[in-house]
């Protein structure tokens, strides 16, 4: 049966009945990096240095060295990333179960609310209202918060800083607890630079999505794009991180398989 399933999957992909949507932003030097207070340790932004380009350094080939942090660009957060998940088994990029990086995607559209309020917080009633329209979130799903934030191609607008810090949407603490305990999700994904809201250090607990999700062995995805091309339910997410030894996360290519009507 499973042979049939895979054969049909491949045939549907070839026949265009299943579309592959790339949910990844391009890794480029001007891509905004996570910004912390300057006295703290900083993640490296993405950088690319030529090794050779068909020149005296290597006449027939072009290649680069690149550098970046584990949390640069479109990236995956493993449970070990947060202090709450530090002692869990299989909590790093090289040990987490690969079954968890392929799963159903539920896309909650918060784009209108985020456009009106950059500090918009996703709440339990908002999720329940979404479920009334699109069906209950199945267990072991990835929940993706669509905000259209990735359409902000100007880095300044994407980071959205003022003198009180960053202003980007995210989930409130109760919504995160609800997704874990009442819906048993695999992870949470966002379009902005963190799974938490820009002002989430002022919530209780601070950074609730990191704190609760990683504390219960769930994952995060951030800097996602093209969520507007996914249906509310029915797509399948594919998001394996790089197999970095004891990695807390990694840049990755995130794909969605979307059934065409």
């Amino acid at each position, binding site marked *: 049966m499973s042979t049939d399933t895979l054969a049909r999957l491949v045939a549907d992909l070839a026949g265009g009945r299943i579309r592959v949507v790339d949910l990844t932003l391009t890794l480029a*030097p*001007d891509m*905004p990096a996570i*910004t912390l207070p300057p*006295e703290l*340790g*900083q993640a490296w*932004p993405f*950088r*690319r*240095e*030529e090794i050779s380009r068909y020149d005296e350094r290597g006449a027939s080939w072009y290649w680069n060295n690149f550098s970046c942090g584990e949390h640069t660009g479109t990236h995956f957060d493993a449970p070990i990333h947060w202090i709450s998940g530090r002692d869990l088994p299989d909590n790093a990029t090289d040990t987490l179960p690969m079954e968890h990086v392929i799963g159903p995607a539920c896309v909650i559209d918060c784009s209108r609310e985020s456009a009106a309020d950059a500090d918009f917080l996703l709440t339990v009633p908002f999720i329940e209202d979404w479920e009334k329209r699109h069906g209950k979130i199945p267990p072991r799903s990835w929940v993706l918060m669509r905000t259209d934030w990735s359409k902000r191609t100007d*880095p*300044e607008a*994407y*980071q*959205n*800083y*003022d*003198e009180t810090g960053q202003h980007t949407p995210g989930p409130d603490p109760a919504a995160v607890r609800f997704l874990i305990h009442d819906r048993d999700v695999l992870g949470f994904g966002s379009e902005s630079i963190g799974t938490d809201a820009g002002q989430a250090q002022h919530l209780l607990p601070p950074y609730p999505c990191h704190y609760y999700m990683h504390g219960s062995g769930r994952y995060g995805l951030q800097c996602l794009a093209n969520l507007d091309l996914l249906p509310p339910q029915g797509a399948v997410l594919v998001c394996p991180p790089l197999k970095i030894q004891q990695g807390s996360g990694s840049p990755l290519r995130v794909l969605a398989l979307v059934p065409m009507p």
Partner: protein
Amino acid sequence: MSNPAPRPKRKNPILRTRLPTLPPHARSRVALGLTAAAALGRLELQRCRNCGAIQYPPRETCHICLSDRLVWEPQDGSGELVSETVVHISQELFFRERAPWRLGLVRLDCGPSVIAHLHGDCAAPPTRLRVLNCLDRAGQAVLVAIPEKETPNMAEDRQLREMSCDPRNRKILVTDGKTAVGQAIVAQLAAAGAEIIWVGYAEPWKKFPGFERIKTIPQVTLMPLDVTDSVSVKELAGEIGVKVDILVNTAEHHRAFGIAARAGTEVARAEMEVNYLGLLRLAQEFGPVMRARGADGRNNAVAWVNLLSIFALANYPPHGTFSASKAAAHSLAQCLRAEMLPSGIRVVNLYPGPVDDEWNQLILPPKLAPAALAAAVVKALQDGVEDVYPGDIAQDWLARWRDNPKALERELAQS
């Protein structure tokens, strides 16, 4: 008086850009003592400790008593013009291209008679004047006689401008305008008559005080530039590199840690990325095109300014990794100077003591105000000097370092 600098006409694009030529630059090792003084903007001559005679040109022994006990001593350069001449024909390419050229014989009050380049505002002999020890386009010391009293637009003299790197009417890139020092330099270069100032800024989402204000300076155009990003440096050089006459590298990363106070290499690497590799990236992308424009008319590519630190000479352990990155930049700036020399472009290094900014919060005054550092940059360009140690702390460290580097190392180990 010299002509007030008119805004130069635009370049005629069908004429070839001349290649840089240099004035004669062979010097004996002893004569380089004069160059060492000129690099700091001082006139120093040899005095004999045996008989007291002061001599010029520099020699291995005293021209009176043949003693080799010679010391370099500062002189004020005042003297009298005895005679003058104008060179119309020279076999030196540099002067052929610049003839006519005015020279004078000056009897210095301290004794020797010298031949000096003669400023256009100096009256016919006999007249009082002052002799400066300047670096010429070859980076070697030459004597320049100027009027005793300031004349209008004195710096605009055609011959004097061949020695200086005056920012007036020049197009300047300041690589980081987000810092207080960068902003002060932009403001003072504008006040000194720069024609265009491109101001680089990285990470546009981070807002810093004063950044909005420099946008209101008419000569200023903001340009995205991150010296840690080779792609960004290459793009900006492609866009404006062919026009940059003076590059002032203000990009700096500074944290206050030694080795033990900060685990890991992230901070040290960030300092090296900006302070050392940033300079390397800028030099690789802007250096070649600036070298090609070393003789591009009256407003040629003329200078490259590095903001280093007095900590580059001797490590200040509380800011140990920062000191190391500045020592690396100091060494690389020497390489850049050697590579720029054939095109006549001056590499100016400033070695300030602690600047009064965020990262020197815990250092006691005196600290150098950003405006004072900016003033030192403008003055260095106007005077055409090569090494500047602005402020009391820098002067103190420099004197202690010259006197006994090991003693300074021990003193700093206990700081």
